[in-house]
């Protein structure tokens, strides 16, 4: 909004410098080609050029309020033509009137003044064009720089969110505890160790495959969940019991990738990690033509897990669903007594 020539110090210095040079040339022309006295030449040059420089600063407003990309070319040209006539006319009139009054006794100069009026108007027009051009160049340059920084920011943001999703996908404690179990299995049962390494690798590969942005089939998601749960079962043994009630008919329904695993992980964290006996995790998928409904239930001990509100994991899933489907009523979390229950509805597009 603010005139960049006034706002940016270096621009202002350059603008003033150029006008000083123009003024000097103006003085030289008056002395050398027209033969006027030095005093007169300097007075006319300073007066007319200072006035023009001032009007030039004011030309920021017609530039600012008429953007080529926002209006038709005809409109744009008409606007500038009008602004040009107005500002040049004003300039010619004012500096003519003042000079005419100042040098009223100098007949030779008055004649020159009158005869040079068309020239002055022409030069004014040229200056108008040049100044307008400079303004548009500045605006474009600023927009370009802004775009560059915005793009860089956006890239950083994307990278950060990718990293975060990666981190949240693979819990380091899960990974290190699993590796410890494998380390133990190598001594007791190398076959089981190998089996677990393969499952862990498949799970990692699936998690690293950037499936978050795409829709996947329930079949793939459940296959990944099974791998994950198999690994956790090796760690927790009988303490983890999974009841899977998935209707086979739902296997081809679509849902965002890697959205269920964090929920199961939560259920394990609050159910299995915090209980001594067996914990059931019940996983139910039902579907209709237009939607897929997934429900995950686990028992937890409210005495030991008393934190209120949903965790970061749940919030992440909520925002992912919002981005994917543009709805925020798809996820529901119910905590009644010692049962924690999450239900997600996936609309089928």
């Amino acid at each position, binding site marked *: 909004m603010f005139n960049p020539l006034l706002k940016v110090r270096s621009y202002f210095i350059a603008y003033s410098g150029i006008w000083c040079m123009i003024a000097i040339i103006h003085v030289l022309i008056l002395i050398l080609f027209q033969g006027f006295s030095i005093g007169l030449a300097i007075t006319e040059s300073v007066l007319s050029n200072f006035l023009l420089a001032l009007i030039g600063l004011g030309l920021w407003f017609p530039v600012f309020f008429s953007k080529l990309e926002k209006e038709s070319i005809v409109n744009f040209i008409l606007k500038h033509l009008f602004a040009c006539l107005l500002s040049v006319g004003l300039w010619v009139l004012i500096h003519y009137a003042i000079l005419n009054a100042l040098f009223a006794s100098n007949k030779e100069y008055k004649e020159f003044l009158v005869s040079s009026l068309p020239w002055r108007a022409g030069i004014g027009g040229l200056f108008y064009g040049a100044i307008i051009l400079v303004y548009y160049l500045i605006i474009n340059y600023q927009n370009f720089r802004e775009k560059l920084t915005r793009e860089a920011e956006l890239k950083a943001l994307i990278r950060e969110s990718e990293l975060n999703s990666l981190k949240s996908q693979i819990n380091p404690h899960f990974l290190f*505890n699993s590796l410890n*179990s494998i380390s*133990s*299995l190598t001594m007791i049962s190398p076959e089981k160790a190998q089996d677990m390494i393969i499952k862990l690798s498949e799970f990692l590969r699936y998690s690293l495959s950037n499936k978050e942005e795409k829709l996947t089939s329930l079949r793939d998601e459940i296959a990944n969940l099974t791998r994950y749960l198999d690994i956790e079962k090796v760690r927790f043994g009988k303490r983890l019991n999974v009841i899977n009630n998935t209707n086979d008919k739902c296997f081809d329904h679509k849902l965002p990738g890697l959205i269920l695993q964090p929920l199961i992980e939560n259920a394990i964290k609050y159910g299995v990690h915090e*209980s*001594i006996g067996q914990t059931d995790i019940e996983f139910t998928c039902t579907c209709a033509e237009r939607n897929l409904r997934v429900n995950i239930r686990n028992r937890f*001990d409210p*005495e030991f897990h*008393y934190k209120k509100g949903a965790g970061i994991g749940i919030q992440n899933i909520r925002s992912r669903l919002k981005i994917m489907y543009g709805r925020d009523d798809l996820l529901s979390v119910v905590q009644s007594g010692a049962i924690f229950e999450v239900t997600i509805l996936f609309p089928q597009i």
Partner: protein
Amino acid sequence: MNIMEPIKAVIIEDEELARELIKNYLKGNDMVEIIRECENGFDGVKAIAELKPDLIFLDIQMPKLNGFEMLELVDDPPETIFITAHNDFAIKAFERNAVDYLLKPYSKDRLLMALNKAVERIRNQVPAAGKVKTLIQAPITEKMERVVVKSGTKIKVIPVEKIIYLEAQDDYVMIYTAEGKHLKQATMKYFEDCLDPSVFIRVHRSYMVHVDQVVQLEPYSRDNFVLKLKNGVALRVSRSGLKSLKEKLSF
């Protein structure tokens, strides 16, 4: 203790394979004898009281009672080697006078190194009484979320949100909750260090109060105030207590 005799150790770890690994690594080692394995902190407390081991291998993340909470409940804690997948508890572990802190997965050599350190400590006999003191009074680096208390053989875990107020009673602190009261062997200083100072206010030499429980402050006599709580209890407020109340509740 006879130098030739192996030291007695207990494993306290909730995952079976993790316990197996320790046993396998130590198989045939004549410096140590595993005398019991515990699947959780409750069993751990019991085993330590019963068997008085020289050394424990302790996991941190366990159901109900984590490794640190378990240690608090033990009167005369043995030397401790922490074994965990979490790398963020090392400082806290060494504040608790840990012999060593192993990150899962770890090698056999690394375990033996820790064991050697433990054996050296045990054979040089660090006085046990000094250990208990440092254990209870060590500065805490992060705020406590729950308090564990022991009455007889029963262990109770109290989330700090459920504490109404605390009262100093000689070497003990009485913890009042809606369900009842529990005695813990600790000092008020310990609770002042461990509890979140924005939630619990020390209103008197003998009292600490949960902010949400405060109903009103009444003058009692000149310069003396009484704090009324939601459950009807009235507590005396000292001059410095009044000052911190004013600061925290900004009145």
